[in-house]
């Protein structure tokens, strides 16, 4: 009974840590991406005679596209740090499958 409780507690703590870190990372990534996209669009729409507008939007979009992978990677690091090898490996395989998917998609 006692060991079940401590096990549940440690799982709850682990979950808390992963969620907090991932949530912070996502908020930062989203804010940076949104700011870049908005700035680039404004420059484009007011007709600034440079290529900086589309570049800013594209960099913002790339940052946004990276956020899902970032959260899996962050979760993996935290799981491994906490000694949860099973979930660390689960995250690693997901990252691997996404990467292979990207390579296959690029060839096709």
């Amino acid at each position, binding site marked *: 009974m006692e060991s079940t409780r401590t096990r549940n507690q440690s799982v709850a703590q682990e979950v808390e840590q992963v969620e907090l870190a991932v949530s912070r990372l996502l908020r930062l*990534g989203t804010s940076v991406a949104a700011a870049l996209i908005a700035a680039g669009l404004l420059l484009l*729409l007011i007709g600034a005679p440079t290529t900086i507008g589309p570049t800013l*939007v594209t960099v913002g*979009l790339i940052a946004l596209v990276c956020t899902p992978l970032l959260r899996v990677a962050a979760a993996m690091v935290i799981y491994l740090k906490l000694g949860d090898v099973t979930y660390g490996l689960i995250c690693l395989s997901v990252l691997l499958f996404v990467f292979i*998917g990207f390579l296959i998609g690029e060839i096709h």
Partner: protein
Amino acid sequence: MNPILHTLAILGTSLVAGLVGSMLGLGGGIIIVPALTLLFGYDFRTAVAASAVAIIATSTGATVAYLRDHITNTRIAMFLEIGSTLGALSGAFIAGYLPARILFFLFALLQAYAAYSMFRARKTELPEGVVPDRLSQRLQLSGSYYDKALGRTVTYQATGTIPGLFLMYVSGALAGLLGVGGGAFKVPAMDIVMRLPIKVSTATSNFMIGVTAAASASVYFVRGDVEPLVAGPVALGVLGGAILGSRLMVKLKGSTLRLLFIPLLLYVALQMAWKGVTS
């Protein structure tokens, strides 16, 4: 149309897509692709690339709030993500060998069945009498969150772990084969088979769809299909909608969420059946 008005119109449409998508755990692609092609006259490639960006924006925008409210279950999401990413890989390999027409009809049938199940469970607030299987216990596919609509903490544990993982594989494969987002498939699978609370299913699906879409979005970037003037306003609008939607969803009752789901599943079923007829 004036370029500023045009951008604002895309922004507004995307806001709605993000709002609906984040509340129901879908990517919003079922709204973005028809809107961009039919309303704004963009070609299919541009629309699909913008839609992949929209799926990621919905996922990221909503996950910030759902993680804070502890509704997303990261363990369940990561575990099931093995199925959907592997499925997407298989989908790319078997794409030429399976007749798309049959797959569209199959998908339509599954969605119609999901709509029927949602309708039958329309008054159910939380799953009852769930007996967790051994794998779910071993992997600790459980959690709890404070339900703002019910005013109490809800504790849950998943069941049907292997069938659930298999359905995620199917959802990933179908998404790869048919180019349709897996969200409309993932939420019913978690709801009906794994017997998770509907809010947990929605939020966890939201977390997952972004990861699967990241591969396809990167490919569209490399191919140059991502148009900054289209994908930019789509991303901003969807992000805004997702932030609003995720705040709204936590206050709704589970049964209300189910009612919102039924017409959407029927719409996807009809859309897939139509594609089966015309393909």
